[in-house]
């Protein structure tokens, strides 16, 4: 899969799905992320920038698990469950290129989380398969013209923030 995009309507469907999942399974937070760790939808207490860190680590963790499966000639480990003292994480793959990640306190049960994740996957998998086959520009009816200012650096040094030895 190369670059892809989601429009407002697709984003709303995914946001509703993770919201329902959190309510039904009594979890703390849930996200739908892609294989590089970009967040497509999320609900719960985890916010930027920690959210990006969690999604990058979860994507990395799942990629390593996938390689383990490959080494063991196992067709695929579709889910991983990290159990902690206070909270746990459950990660399940969807439509090859995406993951659903659920963070839940230990008062919730992993069985309930698995049940509602399975139900959610049934609902959103067709949509994610469509998304992964579409290029960014074919997602919206009237794609905006995207551009960036070639005269300005994306990360220009600001005098107040530059370190004494900042690059020229």
């Amino acid at each position: 899969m190369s670059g892809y995009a989601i429009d407002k309507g697709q984003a709303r469907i995914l946001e509703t799905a993770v919201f329902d999942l959190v309510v039904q399974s009594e979890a703390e937070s849930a996200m739908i992320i892609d294989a590089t760790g970009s967040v497509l939808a999320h609900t719960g207490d985890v916010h930027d920038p920690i959210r990006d860190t969690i999604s990058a680590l979860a994507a990395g963790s799942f990629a390593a698990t996938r390689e383990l499966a490959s080494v063991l000639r196992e067709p695929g480990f579709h889910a991983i469950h990290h159990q902690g003292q206070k909270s746990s994480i459950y990660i399940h793959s969807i439509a090859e290129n995406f993951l659903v990640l659920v963070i839940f306190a230990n008062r919730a049960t992993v069985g309930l989380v698995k049940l509602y994740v399975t139900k959610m996957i049934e609902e959103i998998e067709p949509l994610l398969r469509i998304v992964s086959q579409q290029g960014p520009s074919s997602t919206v009816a009237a794609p905006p013209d995207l551009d960036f200012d070639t005269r300005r650096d994306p990360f220009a040094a600001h005098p107040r923030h530059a370190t004494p030895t900042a690059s020229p």
Partner: protein
Amino acid sequence: MSFVSFGKREISFKIVYYGPPLSGKTTNLEHLHKAIPQGAKGPMTMLSTREDRTLYFDFLPLQSSAIKGFDTKFQLYTVPGQPVYNETRRIVLNGADGLVFVADSQWDVMEQNVDSFENLKKNLGTYGLSLANLPYILQFNKRDLPNIAPPHYMDFLLNRGEKRVPCFESVATDGTGVRTSLNMIARLVMANFIAEYRMGVASSAAREQLAVKDA
């Protein structure tokens, strides 16, 4: 693998810092983490061994408003340079939109630079990718050390692919050349994305016109 959320007006890109062991990939990210102001960066995550060598990857999320009307996120990753960790290097490369190859300028590790560059090409090949169609730059690091190769020699050694790419001299420990390298790869990644995006828009419009004619 770029990701656009038209609803949230967000675009994400993944940039990977690749190179031989101890060439300064992590030091690049550490400097950026110090130099980029709060609000434009998230926390830096390092998955390291006890000896502070990268075991899996380092991760630094940055944010800019570079693409007009969109929050533009750049997720920076490093890979472990040691040969034994090739599988993890390969995993981290997956979905990269751009690369910074951090080479060590010291004469005695020149062979490692070449080996690592060949390894990069091989690992990209496992995803059906090639340096010919992926934005990347070369960074010649450790220019403050004695016994270093001249930049034109390193350029001759590493910059001989199908396209010639920008090269930067750097001293990642004091930040020299680090931000410049990031700005260049960010520009190349955005330019590549926008060119592909516009091509997609143009071909969709052409398809629609054909459909109208057929009707």
